[in-house]
């Protein structure tokens, strides 16, 4: 395993250089706000490597809040009248700079849904395959970070192509895949870090994992039957304060649900994929007007059952949550997935 040393003096230059081969995405502080967002960087714009967790997650790099899937025209003067066409898409190489290791791990969760043997969501998969994940290890985990409980962690490499570790005046860049290697070369960072770099990274990793204060357990959820959990008494109490705003699912890196919408203007139109949330009544309403998840309690239960039970049973790979803590921070009424997990596990 190769480790490259990037002197911070060479950071901006390398980022700049890589732009000729990559579209860059990174965290940027939102104007006049106290939080950052992951976005495509404008020319000359640098990723803010000091930014803490972005408010919404970097899932948007491959799964934007809205995306045109198809476009059409009903104008008979056009050759392709009444045909649905995929618009021009840009799947040239892109790189996510400074993504959190657990946010990258969330891509592997989402991949299970968008890339299956039966179905392949071309929009997500093409974007994902075009993307190189240059992660930044979290040296100082937040109090809400429980990623070590979820098969991930502050130094988790599973979703990454490169793991950057902030060493003060330089970064160590641990090369994890060939894709990652190619990005570092494109940025012109090729200086080997020397023998003890791996050990230093390991030590920091141990330190960061130790600094994590927040944990969840779900060992017993696994053994419980879906019907028992589904019918449990505690949902009324858990759901009471929820205002069904959907914030938790919008900020979540692993929530993958979307709606399909047609928008027309005159004789042209587009078919759009747009984020959706199981917290909304519209999510499940039938054309008849019947809604199988009519009440708030049913919707809240769906969110947690999906994340902490259905997913676990279906894929046998733990829970559908990487422990980033975003939903806890952003929920206006303080519904805390750690608490719910504890209740379900009880």
């Amino acid at each position, binding site marked *: 395993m190769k480790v490259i040393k990037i002197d911070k003096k060479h950071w901006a230059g390398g980022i700049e250089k890589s732009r000729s081969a990559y579209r860059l995405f990174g965290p940027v502080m*939102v*104007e*006049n*706000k*106290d*939080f950052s*967002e992951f976005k495509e960087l404008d020319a000359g714009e640098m990723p803010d490597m000091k930014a803490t967790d972005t*408010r*919404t997650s970097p899932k948007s790099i491959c799964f934007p*809040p*809205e995306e045109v899937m198809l476009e059409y025209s009903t104008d008979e003067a056009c050759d392709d009248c009444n045909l649905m066409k995929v618009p021009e898409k840009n799947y040239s190489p892109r790189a996510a700079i400074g993504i959190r290791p657990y946010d990258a791990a969330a891509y592997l969760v989402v991949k299970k849904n968008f890339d299956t043997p039966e179905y392949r969501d071309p929009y997500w998969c093409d974007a994902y395959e075009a993307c190189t994940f240059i992660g930044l290890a979290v040296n100082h985990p*937040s*109090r*809400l970070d429980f990623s070590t409980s979820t098969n991930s962690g502050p130094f988790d490499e599973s979703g990454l192509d490169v793991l950057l570790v902030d060493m003060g005046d330089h970064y160590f860049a641990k090369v994890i895949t060939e894709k990652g290697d190619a990005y570092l070369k494109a940025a012109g960072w090729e200086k080997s870090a020397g023998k003890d770099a791996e050990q230093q990274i390991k030590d920091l990793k141990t330190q960061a994992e130790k600094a994590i204060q927040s944990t969840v357990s779900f060992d017993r959820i696994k053994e419980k039957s879906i019907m028992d959990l589904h019918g449990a008494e505690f949902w009324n*109490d858990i759901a*009471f*304060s929820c*205002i*069904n*705003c*959907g*914030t938790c699912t*919008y*900020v979540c890196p692993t929530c993958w649900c979307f*709606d399909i*919408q047609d*928008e027309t203007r005159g004789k042209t139109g587009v078919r*759009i994929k*747009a984020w959706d*949330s199981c917290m*909304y*009544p*519209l999510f499940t*309403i039938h054309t008849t007007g019947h809604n199988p998840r009519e009440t708030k309690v049913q919707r809240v239960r769906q969110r947690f059952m999906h994340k902490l039970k259905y997913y676990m049973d279906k894929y046998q790979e733990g829970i559908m949550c990487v422990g980033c803590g975003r939903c*806890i*921070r*952003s929920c*206006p*009424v*303080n*519904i*805390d997935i*750690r*608490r719910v997990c504890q209740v379900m596990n009880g």
Partner: protein
Amino acid sequence: MLAYIDKIKEISDRLLQEKKVDLIIGFRKGTLPMMNEPCFVRSSADVKNLVWDSNCGINLANYLTNRKEKIGVIAKGCDSRNIVTHIIENKISRDQLVIIGVPCKGMIDRRKVYAAAGQEVTEVVEQSDAIVIQFAGGEKTVKKTDVLQDNCAICIHRNPVISDEMVAEPVEEQKGVDRYEDVRRVEAMSPAEKWNYFEELLAPCIRCYACRNACPLCYCPTCFVDESKPQWVGKTLDPIDTRTFHFLRAYHCAGRCTDCGSCVRACPMGIDVRAFTKKLEKDALELFGWEAGMSLDVRPTLDTFKPDDPNTFIK
């Protein structure tokens, strides 16, 4: 305000024991600093879970909509005005409610506390007029008045306007408050400046609808943005649709908004959606002398008309 909790527990316990109510709606301690969670309590044994401090900013009137039980509800000044509005609008009936009134001294804006700390906050301890912010390796004390929610800083109805039991003597109302300085600033802008101001205000919006759902006024069975047959508003972040949502929602709150601040508090993107509702509140006051939710006995300004209205459109 910290001293209220004993009285709140005592009243709640009594109401439950005497079976005057089926449940109490109040707050329990949250899992994050400065976050309490709305909760219900059905038995005496659980009354101990209730808390009260300056982190109870969520408007509890929102939790009363269409409920069928007899309810004891804890109400600050603004909650009480939204309860009045709820009763007038037939969302709950007066005789279902035992209103436990809390004279309020304002709620803390956690974002201001985070800004004052400049780093991750581990704990916040409230004293009577001060807030002690604790973080890794230190603490900092700020005046509570410096970290109040914007709406609380200019609140002139801190005492409940309606209640069955009060947990304490009324607090003094703030005098000489200029409630509309910010609205006047926007009113003075040129159309282009206004446009930019609102465009910038709404730019971070992700259309999660936390603002709407935190608001007790937004109880429609199906909100116009959720209608699908026909669909009035697009679902994407197209600025036209985002604007449409915000403008229409604000108008639906005209003459009803109590400036409780729940909407702003709930927004994950830190958007001051009160910028819309306050203008309407100011208009309702200046044009009709109307303040929402002050009395059960007066019909709201927008559901009455006078035959001798000076405007011609009504005739």
